[in-house]
Protein backbone atom coordinates (compact mmCIF):
# COMPACT_ATOMS: atom_id res chain seq x y z
CA UNK A 1 0.00 0.00 0.00
CA UNK A 2 1.22 3.47 -0.84
CA UNK A 3 1.71 6.00 1.94
CA UNK A 4 -0.40 8.62 0.23
CA UNK A 5 -3.15 8.06 -2.32
CA UNK A 6 -4.92 11.11 -3.66
CA UNK A 7 -7.94 10.53 -5.89
CA UNK A 8 -9.93 13.18 -7.74
CA UNK A 9 -8.91 15.98 -5.42
CA UNK A 10 -10.70 19.23 -6.20
CA UNK A 11 -10.03 22.37 -4.20
CA UNK A 12 -12.49 25.24 -4.41
CA UNK A 13 -11.57 28.68 -3.11
CA UNK A 14 -13.86 31.62 -2.49
CA UNK A 15 -12.73 34.68 -4.44
CA UNK A 16 -14.30 38.12 -4.73
CA UNK A 17 -15.86 37.03 -8.03
CA UNK A 18 -17.33 33.79 -6.71
CA UNK A 19 -16.02 30.26 -6.26
CA UNK A 20 -12.99 29.19 -8.27
CA UNK A 21 -11.36 25.81 -8.57
CA UNK A 22 -7.66 25.98 -7.76
CA UNK A 23 -7.10 22.21 -8.06
CA UNK A 24 -9.16 20.09 -10.44
CA UNK A 25 -9.56 16.31 -10.32
CA UNK A 26 -6.02 15.64 -9.27
CA UNK A 27 -4.93 12.06 -8.65
CA UNK A 28 -1.47 10.95 -7.56
CA UNK A 29 0.25 8.74 -5.04
CA UNK A 30 3.45 8.64 -3.06
CA UNK A 31 5.22 5.50 -1.82
CA UNK A 32 7.17 4.96 1.39
CA UNK A 33 10.61 6.53 1.12
CA UNK A 34 9.80 8.08 -2.22
CA UNK A 35 10.52 11.67 -3.24
CA UNK A 36 7.86 13.21 -5.47
CA UNK A 37 8.33 16.61 -7.05
CA UNK A 38 5.41 18.82 -8.03
CA UNK A 39 6.29 21.56 -10.49
CA UNK A 40 4.36 24.31 -12.19
CA UNK A 41 4.21 28.08 -12.46
CA UNK A 42 2.54 30.29 -9.87
CA UNK A 43 -1.20 29.72 -9.77
CA UNK A 44 -0.94 26.14 -11.01
CA UNK A 45 -2.39 24.84 -7.73
CA UNK A 46 0.67 23.10 -6.34
CA UNK A 47 0.66 24.87 -2.99
CA UNK A 48 -3.12 24.46 -2.60
CA UNK A 49 -2.68 20.72 -3.15
CA UNK A 50 -0.20 20.59 -0.27
CA UNK A 51 -2.30 22.76 2.03
CA UNK A 52 -5.39 20.62 1.43
CA UNK A 53 -3.51 17.56 2.71
CA UNK A 54 -2.90 19.35 5.99
CA UNK A 55 -6.35 20.89 6.38
CA UNK A 56 -4.79 24.35 6.04
CA UNK A 57 -6.83 25.76 3.15
CA UNK A 58 -7.63 29.48 3.28
CA UNK A 59 -10.93 30.72 4.72
CA UNK A 60 -13.92 29.20 2.94
CA UNK A 61 -11.68 26.95 0.88
CA UNK A 62 -12.90 23.37 0.59
CA UNK A 63 -11.45 20.14 -0.70
CA UNK A 64 -13.40 17.27 -2.28
CA UNK A 65 -12.30 13.86 -3.43
CA UNK A 66 -10.30 11.40 -1.42
CA UNK A 67 -6.93 11.51 0.31
CA UNK A 68 -5.82 8.24 1.87
CA UNK A 69 -2.86 8.68 4.19
CA UNK A 70 -1.50 5.37 5.45
CA UNK A 71 -4.81 3.79 4.53
CA UNK A 72 -6.91 6.34 6.36
CA UNK A 73 -9.17 8.97 4.79
CA UNK A 74 -7.95 12.36 6.02
CA UNK A 75 -10.03 14.77 3.96
CA UNK A 76 -12.95 14.29 6.36
CA UNK A 77 -10.87 14.93 9.48
CA UNK A 78 -12.20 17.28 12.14
CA UNK A 79 -10.09 20.21 13.30
CA UNK A 80 -8.94 18.20 16.30
CA UNK A 81 -7.97 15.19 14.20
CA UNK A 82 -5.99 17.46 11.87
CA UNK A 83 -4.17 18.92 14.87
CA UNK A 84 -3.04 15.44 15.84
CA UNK A 85 -1.92 14.71 12.30
CA UNK A 86 -0.05 17.92 11.53
CA UNK A 87 3.51 18.02 12.79
CA UNK A 88 3.24 14.39 13.89
CA UNK A 89 2.56 12.22 10.84
CA UNK A 90 2.73 14.92 8.17
CA UNK A 91 5.11 17.86 8.55
CA UNK A 92 5.68 20.81 6.28
CA UNK A 93 8.47 23.26 5.62
CA UNK A 94 7.91 26.56 3.84
CA UNK A 95 9.75 28.80 1.43
CA UNK A 96 10.82 31.53 3.78
CA UNK A 97 12.27 30.27 7.08
CA UNK A 98 12.30 33.81 8.46
CA UNK A 99 8.53 33.97 8.46
CA UNK A 100 7.89 30.33 9.36
CA UNK A 101 9.97 30.56 12.54
CA UNK A 102 8.74 32.74 15.38
CA UNK A 103 11.15 35.68 15.66
CA UNK A 104 10.65 36.24 19.40
CA UNK A 105 11.01 32.68 20.69
CA UNK A 106 14.24 30.77 21.21
CA UNK A 107 15.01 27.80 19.00
CA UNK A 108 14.57 25.54 22.05
CA UNK A 109 11.00 26.72 22.67
CA UNK A 110 10.08 26.23 19.03
CA UNK A 111 11.79 22.87 18.64
CA UNK A 112 10.36 21.31 21.78
CA UNK A 113 6.82 22.70 21.57
CA UNK A 114 5.24 20.04 19.40
CA UNK A 115 7.35 17.26 20.90
CA UNK A 116 5.77 18.08 24.22
CA UNK A 117 2.31 18.43 22.65
CA UNK A 118 2.33 15.24 20.58
CA UNK A 119 4.58 13.01 22.63
CA UNK A 120 3.75 14.36 26.09
CA UNK A 121 7.42 14.14 27.11
CA UNK A 122 9.01 16.16 29.91
CA UNK A 123 11.09 19.25 29.29
CA UNK A 124 14.50 17.66 29.72
CA UNK A 125 13.95 14.75 27.33
CA UNK A 126 12.41 17.14 24.79
CA UNK A 127 15.59 19.19 25.09
CA UNK A 128 17.73 16.13 24.51
CA UNK A 129 15.72 15.25 21.39
CA UNK A 130 16.05 18.84 20.17
CA UNK A 131 19.84 18.64 20.52
CA UNK A 132 19.89 15.42 18.53
CA UNK A 133 17.69 16.96 15.84
CA UNK A 134 19.95 19.98 15.42
CA UNK A 135 22.86 17.61 15.09
CA UNK A 136 21.00 15.63 12.41
CA UNK A 137 20.49 18.75 10.32
CA UNK A 138 24.16 19.69 10.86
CA UNK A 139 23.83 22.85 12.92
CA UNK A 140 27.23 23.52 14.48
CA UNK A 141 27.17 23.78 18.30
CA UNK A 142 23.56 22.63 18.93
CA UNK A 143 23.62 23.61 22.62
CA UNK A 144 24.31 27.24 21.79
CA UNK A 145 21.80 27.15 18.95
CA UNK A 146 19.01 26.16 21.34
CA UNK A 147 19.46 29.37 23.30
CA UNK A 148 19.54 31.54 20.18
CA UNK A 149 16.76 33.33 18.26
CA UNK A 150 16.08 32.88 14.52
CA UNK A 151 17.58 36.28 13.64
CA UNK A 152 20.99 35.02 14.72
CA UNK A 153 21.09 32.49 11.88
CA UNK A 154 21.58 32.83 8.14
CA UNK A 155 18.86 31.79 5.69
CA UNK A 156 20.33 28.36 5.10
CA UNK A 157 20.75 27.67 8.83
CA UNK A 158 17.16 28.80 9.47
CA UNK A 159 15.90 26.39 6.85
CA UNK A 160 17.89 23.61 8.53
CA UNK A 161 16.24 24.53 11.84
CA UNK A 162 12.81 24.47 10.15
CA UNK A 163 13.64 20.99 8.85
CA UNK A 164 14.69 19.91 12.36
CA UNK A 165 11.34 21.15 13.66
CA UNK A 166 9.51 19.22 10.97
CA UNK A 167 11.42 16.04 11.84
CA UNK A 168 10.84 16.29 15.61
CA UNK A 169 7.95 13.82 15.80
CA UNK A 170 9.36 11.52 13.12
CA UNK A 171 6.73 12.19 10.48
CA UNK A 172 6.11 9.71 7.68
CA UNK A 173 5.59 12.45 5.13
CA UNK A 174 7.46 15.73 4.75
CA UNK A 175 5.94 18.36 2.50
CA UNK A 176 8.46 20.97 1.35
CA UNK A 177 7.02 24.03 -0.39
CA UNK A 178 9.78 25.80 -2.34
CA UNK A 179 12.31 24.98 0.42
CA UNK A 180 15.33 26.40 -1.39
CA UNK A 181 13.86 29.21 -3.51
CA UNK A 182 14.94 31.93 -1.08
CA UNK A 183 18.47 30.53 -0.72
CA UNK A 184 21.73 30.96 -2.62
CA UNK A 185 22.80 28.07 -4.87
CA UNK A 186 25.70 27.14 -2.62
CA UNK A 187 23.36 26.84 0.36
CA UNK A 188 20.63 25.21 -1.71
CA UNK A 189 22.98 22.37 -2.61
CA UNK A 190 23.51 21.68 1.11
CA UNK A 191 19.76 21.52 1.82
CA UNK A 192 19.19 19.18 -1.14
CA UNK A 193 21.88 16.84 0.16
CA UNK A 194 20.31 16.90 3.61
CA UNK A 195 16.84 16.03 2.31
CA UNK A 196 18.27 13.20 0.24
CA UNK A 197 20.13 11.84 3.25
CA UNK A 198 17.01 11.99 5.44
CA UNK A 199 15.13 9.92 2.92
CA UNK A 200 17.90 7.34 2.80
CA UNK A 201 18.36 7.13 6.57
CA UNK A 202 14.77 7.35 7.78
CA UNK A 203 12.82 6.08 4.78
CA UNK A 204 11.04 9.44 4.88
CA UNK A 205 8.60 10.21 2.06
CA UNK A 206 9.04 13.71 0.69
CA UNK A 207 6.73 15.78 -1.47
CA UNK A 208 8.63 18.77 -2.79
CA UNK A 209 6.96 21.68 -4.53
CA UNK A 210 9.09 23.95 -6.68
CA UNK A 211 9.27 25.62 -10.05
CA UNK A 212 12.97 24.83 -10.33
CA UNK A 213 13.44 21.79 -12.57
CA UNK A 214 17.13 21.64 -11.65
CA UNK A 215 16.24 21.07 -8.01
CA UNK A 216 13.77 18.36 -9.00
CA UNK A 217 16.33 16.65 -11.18
CA UNK A 218 18.81 16.37 -8.30
CA UNK A 219 16.36 15.26 -5.65
CA UNK A 220 13.26 13.46 -6.88
CA UNK A 221 12.33 9.95 -8.00
CA UNK A 222 9.18 11.08 -9.78
CA UNK A 223 7.81 14.40 -11.00
CA UNK A 224 4.28 15.66 -11.60
CA UNK A 225 3.85 18.80 -13.68
CA UNK A 226 0.76 20.90 -12.97
CA UNK A 227 -0.95 23.55 -15.06
CA UNK A 228 -4.12 25.45 -14.10
CA UNK A 229 -4.92 23.09 -11.23
CA UNK A 230 -4.55 19.85 -13.16
CA UNK A 231 -1.84 17.34 -13.85
CA UNK A 232 -0.44 17.63 -17.38
CA UNK A 233 2.35 15.08 -17.13
CA UNK A 234 3.91 12.75 -14.59
CA UNK A 235 6.63 10.17 -14.71
CA UNK A 236 10.02 9.07 -13.44
CA UNK A 237 12.38 12.02 -13.13
CA UNK A 238 14.72 10.78 -15.83
CA UNK A 239 11.90 9.92 -18.29
CA UNK A 240 10.11 13.19 -17.79
CA UNK A 241 13.14 15.47 -18.04
CA UNK A 242 14.93 13.64 -20.83
CA UNK A 243 11.85 12.78 -22.83
CA UNK A 244 9.08 15.26 -22.01
CA UNK A 245 5.89 14.47 -23.90
CA UNK A 246 3.40 17.17 -22.98
CA UNK A 247 3.88 20.44 -24.90
CA UNK A 248 3.83 22.41 -21.63
CA UNK A 249 6.55 20.30 -19.99
CA UNK A 250 8.54 20.53 -23.17
CA UNK A 251 8.11 24.32 -23.12
CA UNK A 252 9.26 24.57 -19.50
CA UNK A 253 12.36 22.53 -20.23
CA UNK A 254 13.21 24.48 -23.38
CA UNK A 255 12.83 27.76 -21.45
CA UNK A 256 15.71 26.79 -19.15
CA UNK A 257 18.76 28.97 -19.79
CA UNK A 258 20.96 25.91 -20.30
CA UNK A 259 18.62 24.19 -22.72
CA UNK A 260 19.08 25.60 -26.18
CA UNK A 261 22.43 25.58 -27.86
CA UNK A 262 23.45 28.90 -29.30
CA UNK A 263 22.90 32.63 -29.13
CA UNK A 264 21.59 34.71 -26.29
CA UNK A 265 17.91 34.26 -27.05
CA UNK A 266 16.01 31.98 -24.71
CA UNK A 267 13.08 29.90 -25.85
CA UNK A 268 9.91 30.97 -24.10
CA UNK A 269 6.33 29.77 -23.92
CA UNK A 270 4.11 32.43 -25.45
CA UNK A 271 1.52 34.10 -23.25
CA UNK A 272 1.33 33.80 -19.51
CA UNK A 273 -0.15 31.45 -16.91
CA UNK A 274 -3.93 31.86 -16.49
CA UNK A 275 -5.38 33.41 -13.38
CA UNK A 276 -7.50 31.59 -10.84
CA UNK A 277 -11.13 31.30 -11.97
CA UNK A 278 -10.16 32.12 -15.53
CA UNK A 279 -8.90 28.78 -16.82
CA UNK A 280 -9.57 27.98 -20.49
CA UNK A 281 -12.12 25.31 -21.37
CA UNK A 282 -11.07 21.83 -22.42
CA UNK A 283 -7.31 21.53 -22.06
CA UNK A 284 -6.43 24.66 -20.07
CA UNK A 285 -3.10 24.94 -21.88
CA UNK A 286 -4.56 25.11 -25.39
CA UNK A 287 -4.44 28.94 -25.81
CA UNK A 288 -0.64 28.81 -25.38
CA UNK A 289 0.02 25.47 -27.06
CA UNK A 290 1.83 25.38 -30.40
CA UNK A 291 0.18 22.07 -31.31
CA UNK A 292 -3.39 22.97 -30.33
CA UNK A 293 -6.17 21.64 -32.53
CA UNK A 294 -9.81 22.60 -32.66
CA UNK A 295 -10.84 19.70 -30.42
CA UNK A 296 -8.52 20.84 -27.59
CA UNK A 297 -10.94 23.51 -26.39
CA UNK A 298 -13.91 21.13 -26.32
CA UNK A 299 -13.19 18.40 -23.82
CA UNK A 300 -10.99 17.96 -20.78
CA UNK A 301 -8.11 15.70 -21.86
CA UNK A 302 -7.91 12.20 -20.41
CA UNK A 303 -4.76 10.47 -19.27
CA UNK A 304 -2.67 8.86 -21.98
CA UNK A 305 -0.19 6.25 -20.72
CA UNK A 306 3.18 6.52 -22.43
CA UNK A 307 4.57 3.71 -20.29
CA UNK A 308 3.63 2.10 -16.96
CA UNK A 309 5.05 5.04 -15.05
CA UNK A 310 4.76 7.91 -17.53
CA UNK A 311 1.51 9.59 -18.54
CA UNK A 312 0.36 12.80 -20.14
CA UNK A 313 -2.97 14.57 -20.31
CA UNK A 314 -2.91 15.36 -24.00
CA UNK A 315 -4.81 13.16 -26.47
CA UNK A 316 -2.88 14.54 -29.44
CA UNK A 317 0.52 13.48 -28.09
CA UNK A 318 2.33 15.74 -30.58
CA UNK A 319 5.83 14.86 -29.40
CA UNK A 320 5.30 11.19 -30.09
CA UNK A 321 8.44 9.21 -30.75
CA UNK A 322 8.35 6.37 -33.26
CA UNK A 323 9.02 3.72 -30.62
CA UNK A 324 6.93 3.82 -27.47
CA UNK A 325 7.46 1.48 -24.60
CA UNK A 326 4.39 -0.26 -23.32
CA UNK A 327 1.86 1.25 -25.72
Amino acid at each position, binding site marked *: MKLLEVTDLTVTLATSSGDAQAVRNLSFNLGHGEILGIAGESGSGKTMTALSLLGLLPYKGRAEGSVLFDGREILTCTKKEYRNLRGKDIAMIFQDPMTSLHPMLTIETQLTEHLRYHRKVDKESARQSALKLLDTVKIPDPAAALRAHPIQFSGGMRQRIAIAMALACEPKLLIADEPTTAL*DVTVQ*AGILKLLHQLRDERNLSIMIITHDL*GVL*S*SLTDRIMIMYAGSEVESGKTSDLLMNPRHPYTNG*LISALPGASKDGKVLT*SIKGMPPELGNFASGCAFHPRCAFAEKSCSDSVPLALQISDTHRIFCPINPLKKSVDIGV
Partner: protein
Amino acid sequence: MKEILNLKDVVVEYERRNETIRAVAGVDLTLNSGEILGLVGESGCGKSTLGKAMVGILKPALGEITFDGEKVKKLTRGQLPKHFRNLQMVFQDPYGSLNPRRKIGAQIIDGLLVSGMKIIEAMENAESLLGKVGLPKDAIDRFPHQFSGGQRQRIAIARALAASPTVIIADEPISALDTSSQAQVANLLVNLVEEFGMGMVFISHDLSIVRRISDRVAVMYLGKIVEIGTTTQIWQNPSHPYTRALISAIPHADGRSFMPSDLPGDVPNPMYPPTGCRFHPRCPLAMPECAITEPELVTLSDNRQVSCLLQISNTAPTPMTF
Protein backbone atom coordinates in the same frame (compact mmCIF):
# COMPACT_ATOMS: atom_id res chain seq x y z
CA MET B 1 33.78 49.09 -28.25
CA LYS B 2 33.59 52.29 -26.27
CA GLU B 3 34.10 52.39 -22.53
CA ILE B 4 30.96 53.98 -21.08
CA LEU B 5 30.97 53.31 -17.35
CA ASN B 6 34.10 53.19 -15.26
CA LEU B 7 34.59 52.38 -11.60
CA LYS B 8 37.88 53.09 -9.89
CA ASP B 9 38.58 51.62 -6.48
CA VAL B 10 34.99 52.18 -5.37
CA VAL B 11 34.19 51.74 -1.67
CA VAL B 12 30.62 51.98 -0.38
CA GLU B 13 29.89 52.03 3.32
CA TYR B 14 26.79 51.90 5.48
CA GLU B 15 26.65 53.45 8.93
CA ARG B 16 24.87 51.49 11.62
CA ARG B 17 24.93 52.38 15.31
CA ASN B 18 28.20 54.23 14.90
CA GLU B 19 29.74 51.22 13.22
CA THR B 20 30.79 51.19 9.61
CA ILE B 21 29.98 48.31 7.33
CA ARG B 22 32.04 48.25 4.19
CA ALA B 23 29.61 46.60 1.75
CA VAL B 24 31.77 47.30 -1.30
CA ALA B 25 35.47 47.22 -0.48
CA GLY B 26 37.34 48.53 -3.50
CA VAL B 27 36.02 47.59 -6.91
CA ASP B 28 37.50 48.39 -10.31
CA LEU B 29 35.21 47.73 -13.24
CA THR B 30 34.49 48.94 -16.74
CA LEU B 31 31.43 48.55 -18.91
CA ASN B 32 31.56 48.99 -22.67
CA SER B 33 28.75 50.09 -25.00
CA GLY B 34 26.82 47.20 -26.49
CA GLU B 35 27.88 44.65 -23.90
CA ILE B 36 26.10 42.86 -21.09
CA LEU B 37 28.19 42.48 -17.96
CA GLY B 38 26.86 39.90 -15.52
CA LEU B 39 27.49 40.60 -11.83
CA VAL B 40 27.08 37.51 -9.66
CA GLY B 41 27.65 36.42 -6.08
CA GLU B 42 25.81 35.14 -3.00
CA SER B 43 23.36 37.39 -1.17
CA GLY B 44 25.18 39.88 1.00
CA CYS B 45 28.21 40.12 -1.29
CA GLY B 46 27.50 43.75 -2.15
CA LYS B 47 26.32 43.39 -5.73
CA SER B 48 23.11 45.40 -5.28
CA THR B 49 24.95 48.04 -3.27
CA LEU B 50 27.44 48.37 -6.09
CA GLY B 51 24.58 48.67 -8.62
CA LYS B 52 22.99 51.46 -6.61
CA ALA B 53 26.29 53.30 -6.38
CA MET B 54 26.69 53.07 -10.17
CA VAL B 55 23.56 55.19 -10.74
CA GLY B 56 24.17 57.53 -7.82
CA ILE B 57 21.56 56.25 -5.35
CA LEU B 58 24.42 55.65 -2.92
CA LYS B 59 27.52 57.77 -2.66
CA PRO B 60 30.84 55.95 -2.65
CA ALA B 61 32.92 56.67 0.44
CA LEU B 62 36.07 56.39 -1.64
CA GLY B 63 36.91 56.01 -5.29
CA GLU B 64 35.26 57.37 -8.39
CA ILE B 65 32.52 56.33 -10.79
CA THR B 66 32.48 57.97 -14.20
CA PHE B 67 29.71 57.71 -16.75
CA ASP B 68 30.62 58.74 -20.27
CA GLY B 69 33.60 60.65 -18.95
CA GLU B 70 31.79 62.55 -16.20
CA LYS B 71 31.73 61.80 -12.51
CA VAL B 72 28.48 60.27 -11.21
CA LYS B 73 27.04 62.42 -8.41
CA LYS B 74 24.68 61.33 -5.69
CA LEU B 75 21.01 61.72 -6.62
CA THR B 76 19.32 64.55 -4.77
CA ARG B 77 15.95 66.25 -4.92
CA GLY B 78 17.31 68.78 -7.40
CA GLN B 79 17.71 68.03 -11.08
CA LEU B 80 20.64 66.02 -12.24
CA PRO B 81 22.68 67.29 -15.14
CA LYS B 82 20.92 66.25 -18.36
CA HIS B 83 23.79 63.99 -19.18
CA PHE B 84 22.98 61.47 -16.43
CA ARG B 85 19.48 60.81 -17.70
CA ASN B 86 21.06 58.28 -20.00
CA LEU B 87 22.08 56.19 -17.00
CA GLN B 88 19.04 54.21 -15.82
CA MET B 89 18.20 51.45 -13.41
CA VAL B 90 15.62 48.63 -13.40
CA PHE B 91 14.82 47.13 -10.00
CA GLN B 92 14.04 43.59 -8.87
CA ASP B 93 10.50 43.98 -7.63
CA PRO B 94 8.09 45.50 -10.16
CA TYR B 95 5.42 45.50 -7.42
CA GLY B 96 7.47 47.95 -5.39
CA SER B 97 9.09 50.03 -8.12
CA LEU B 98 5.87 51.27 -9.75
CA ASN B 99 3.54 53.71 -8.00
CA PRO B 100 0.25 51.84 -7.47
CA ARG B 101 -1.84 55.03 -7.60
CA ARG B 102 -0.61 56.50 -10.85
CA LYS B 103 -1.51 55.41 -14.36
CA ILE B 104 1.17 53.67 -16.40
CA GLY B 105 1.31 56.51 -18.95
CA ALA B 106 1.90 59.14 -16.27
CA GLN B 107 4.75 57.12 -14.79
CA ILE B 108 6.47 56.57 -18.11
CA ILE B 109 6.29 60.19 -19.31
CA ASP B 110 7.83 61.62 -16.12
CA GLY B 111 11.27 61.25 -17.60
CA LEU B 112 10.17 62.76 -20.91
CA LEU B 113 8.49 65.78 -19.28
CA VAL B 114 11.59 66.52 -17.24
CA SER B 115 13.57 66.71 -20.45
CA GLY B 116 11.19 69.44 -21.63
CA MET B 117 8.91 67.47 -23.95
CA LYS B 118 5.27 68.54 -24.41
CA ILE B 119 2.70 66.29 -22.80
CA ILE B 120 0.97 65.21 -26.03
CA GLU B 121 4.24 64.32 -27.65
CA ALA B 122 5.35 62.52 -24.48
CA MET B 123 2.17 60.41 -24.46
CA GLU B 124 2.74 59.38 -28.08
CA ASN B 125 6.27 58.48 -27.13
CA ALA B 126 5.05 56.43 -24.19
CA GLU B 127 2.76 54.46 -26.51
CA SER B 128 5.61 53.56 -28.79
CA LEU B 129 7.76 52.60 -25.79
CA LEU B 130 5.03 50.26 -24.57
CA GLY B 131 4.98 48.74 -28.04
CA LYS B 132 8.75 48.22 -27.84
CA VAL B 133 8.42 46.20 -24.65
CA GLY B 134 5.54 44.19 -26.07
CA LEU B 135 2.54 45.73 -24.30
CA PRO B 136 -0.67 47.08 -25.88
CA LYS B 137 -1.05 50.86 -26.32
CA ASP B 138 -4.12 51.02 -24.09
CA ALA B 139 -1.91 50.04 -21.14
CA ILE B 140 -1.25 53.77 -20.84
CA ASP B 141 -4.58 54.37 -19.10
CA ARG B 142 -4.35 51.45 -16.72
CA PHE B 143 -2.92 51.02 -13.24
CA PRO B 144 -0.05 48.72 -12.16
CA HIS B 145 -2.35 46.27 -10.33
CA GLN B 146 -4.01 45.39 -13.64
CA PHE B 147 -0.82 43.74 -14.85
CA SER B 148 1.03 40.53 -14.02
CA GLY B 149 4.57 40.52 -12.63
CA GLY B 150 6.15 40.01 -16.04
CA GLN B 151 4.11 42.82 -17.58
CA ARG B 152 4.95 45.16 -14.71
CA GLN B 153 8.63 44.48 -15.24
CA ARG B 154 8.12 45.40 -18.92
CA ILE B 155 6.53 48.68 -17.79
CA ALA B 156 9.50 49.37 -15.51
CA ILE B 157 11.78 48.73 -18.49
CA ALA B 158 9.71 51.04 -20.72
CA ARG B 159 10.05 53.73 -18.06
CA ALA B 160 13.81 53.34 -18.03
CA LEU B 161 13.86 53.46 -21.85
CA ALA B 162 11.96 56.79 -21.84
CA ALA B 163 15.20 58.52 -20.95
CA SER B 164 16.90 56.92 -24.01
CA PRO B 165 19.56 55.36 -21.81
CA THR B 166 23.02 54.38 -22.94
CA VAL B 167 23.54 52.29 -19.82
CA ILE B 168 20.99 50.25 -17.86
CA ILE B 169 21.78 48.79 -14.47
CA ALA B 170 19.37 45.86 -14.04
CA ASP B 171 19.27 44.59 -10.45
CA GLU B 172 17.78 41.07 -10.43
CA PRO B 173 15.25 42.09 -13.11
CA ILE B 174 13.79 38.62 -13.60
CA SER B 175 14.16 36.96 -10.19
CA ALA B 176 10.62 37.78 -9.09
CA LEU B 177 9.03 36.37 -12.26
CA ASP B 178 7.64 32.99 -13.32
CA THR B 179 9.69 30.66 -15.52
CA SER B 180 7.95 31.55 -18.77
CA SER B 181 8.01 35.33 -18.09
CA GLN B 182 11.67 35.08 -17.05
CA ALA B 183 12.69 33.97 -20.51
CA GLN B 184 10.47 36.59 -22.15
CA VAL B 185 11.84 39.52 -20.12
CA ALA B 186 15.45 38.33 -20.47
CA ASN B 187 14.98 38.17 -24.24
CA LEU B 188 13.50 41.67 -24.24
CA LEU B 189 16.55 43.06 -22.40
CA VAL B 190 18.98 41.32 -24.75
CA ASN B 191 17.13 42.66 -27.80
CA LEU B 192 17.08 46.22 -26.44
CA VAL B 193 20.81 46.14 -25.73
CA GLU B 194 21.44 44.97 -29.28
CA GLU B 195 18.98 47.39 -30.89
CA PHE B 196 20.18 50.53 -29.12
CA GLY B 197 23.81 49.55 -28.57
CA MET B 198 23.42 50.16 -24.83
CA GLY B 199 25.63 48.79 -22.11
CA MET B 200 23.97 46.76 -19.38
CA VAL B 201 25.05 45.54 -15.97
CA PHE B 202 22.93 42.49 -15.20
CA ILE B 203 22.99 41.78 -11.47
CA SER B 204 21.72 38.32 -10.60
CA HIS B 205 22.17 35.38 -8.31
CA ASP B 206 20.89 33.05 -11.04
CA LEU B 207 24.09 31.95 -12.68
CA SER B 208 22.52 29.98 -15.49
CA ILE B 209 20.71 33.03 -16.87
CA VAL B 210 23.85 35.15 -16.53
CA ARG B 211 25.78 32.53 -18.44
CA ARG B 212 23.25 32.69 -21.21
CA ILE B 213 22.97 36.41 -21.83
CA SER B 214 26.23 38.01 -20.61
CA ASP B 215 29.31 38.80 -22.64
CA ARG B 216 31.47 39.15 -19.56
CA VAL B 217 30.94 38.06 -15.96
CA ALA B 218 32.23 39.58 -12.72
CA VAL B 219 32.10 37.40 -9.60
CA MET B 220 31.83 39.22 -6.27
CA TYR B 221 32.57 37.92 -2.80
CA LEU B 222 32.17 39.99 0.36
CA GLY B 223 32.52 43.36 -1.31
CA LYS B 224 35.32 42.54 -3.72
CA ILE B 225 35.56 41.22 -7.23
CA VAL B 226 37.35 37.88 -7.15
CA GLU B 227 37.25 37.07 -10.84
CA ILE B 228 36.23 38.84 -14.03
CA GLY B 229 36.46 37.52 -17.57
CA THR B 230 34.47 36.52 -20.61
CA THR B 231 31.51 34.26 -19.96
CA THR B 232 33.22 31.33 -21.70
CA GLN B 233 36.38 31.71 -19.62
CA ILE B 234 34.46 31.88 -16.36
CA TRP B 235 32.34 28.86 -17.17
CA GLN B 236 34.70 26.55 -18.90
CA ASN B 237 37.72 27.22 -16.81
CA PRO B 238 37.00 29.08 -13.57
CA SER B 239 40.28 30.23 -12.07
CA HIS B 240 39.08 31.29 -8.61
CA PRO B 241 37.98 28.61 -6.11
CA TYR B 242 34.85 30.64 -5.31
CA THR B 243 33.80 30.85 -8.97
CA ARG B 244 34.35 27.14 -9.26
CA ALA B 245 32.26 26.48 -6.11
CA LEU B 246 29.43 28.68 -7.37
CA ILE B 247 29.29 26.85 -10.70
CA SER B 248 29.38 23.37 -9.17
CA ALA B 249 26.46 24.28 -6.90
CA ILE B 250 24.06 24.76 -9.83
CA PRO B 251 21.70 21.80 -10.22
CA HIS B 252 21.35 20.36 -13.73
CA ALA B 253 17.81 19.85 -15.00
CA ASP B 254 18.78 16.96 -17.23
CA GLY B 255 17.13 14.11 -15.33
CA ARG B 256 20.46 12.46 -14.49
CA SER B 257 20.12 12.94 -10.70
CA PHE B 258 23.27 15.06 -10.57
CA MET B 259 23.74 16.20 -6.96
CA PRO B 260 25.28 19.69 -6.86
CA SER B 261 28.09 20.34 -4.37
CA ASP B 262 27.52 22.74 -1.52
CA LEU B 263 29.92 25.30 -0.17
CA PRO B 264 29.94 24.92 3.61
CA GLY B 265 29.84 27.97 5.81
CA ASP B 266 28.24 31.36 5.36
CA VAL B 267 29.33 34.65 3.90
CA PRO B 268 31.15 36.31 6.83
CA ASN B 269 29.92 39.51 8.43
CA PRO B 270 31.28 42.39 6.30
CA MET B 271 31.82 44.36 9.50
CA TYR B 272 34.62 41.95 10.41
CA PRO B 273 36.01 40.58 7.14
CA PRO B 274 38.54 37.74 7.46
CA THR B 275 42.21 38.64 7.26
CA GLY B 276 44.17 37.92 4.10
CA CYS B 277 41.99 36.51 1.35
CA ARG B 278 38.35 37.09 2.27
CA PHE B 279 37.37 33.68 0.96
CA HIS B 280 40.00 31.64 2.82
CA PRO B 281 37.78 30.38 5.73
CA ARG B 282 35.50 28.62 3.21
CA CYS B 283 38.07 27.81 0.54
CA PRO B 284 38.81 24.12 -0.04
CA LEU B 285 42.25 25.03 -1.41
CA ALA B 286 43.27 27.47 1.33
CA MET B 287 46.96 27.52 2.30
CA PRO B 288 48.40 29.03 5.52
CA GLU B 289 49.53 32.05 3.55
CA CYS B 290 45.95 32.84 2.48
CA ALA B 291 45.08 33.97 6.00
CA ILE B 292 47.89 36.53 5.95
CA THR B 293 48.29 37.95 2.46
CA GLU B 294 45.40 39.63 0.70
CA PRO B 295 45.62 38.69 -2.99
CA GLU B 296 45.67 41.43 -5.62
CA LEU B 297 43.50 41.31 -8.72
CA VAL B 298 46.02 40.11 -11.33
CA THR B 299 45.63 39.81 -15.09
CA LEU B 300 46.33 36.36 -16.49
CA SER B 301 47.66 35.60 -19.96
CA ASP B 302 44.15 35.04 -21.31
CA ASN B 303 43.25 38.59 -20.24
CA ARG B 304 40.93 37.69 -17.40
CA GLN B 305 41.48 39.10 -13.93
CA VAL B 306 41.45 37.08 -10.76
CA SER B 307 42.46 37.59 -7.13
CA CYS B 308 43.83 34.33 -5.77
CA LEU B 309 47.31 33.51 -4.48
CA LEU B 310 47.31 30.38 -6.64
CA GLN B 311 47.21 32.45 -9.81
CA ILE B 312 50.28 34.25 -11.10
CA SER B 313 50.12 37.39 -13.18
CA ASN B 314 50.64 37.01 -16.96
CA THR B 315 50.58 33.21 -16.91
CA ALA B 316 47.93 30.77 -18.04
CA PRO B 317 45.26 30.13 -15.39
CA THR B 318 45.99 27.29 -12.95
CA PRO B 319 43.03 24.93 -13.10
CA MET B 320 40.96 24.71 -9.93
CA THR B 321 40.32 21.13 -8.89
CA PHE B 322 38.69 20.02 -5.66
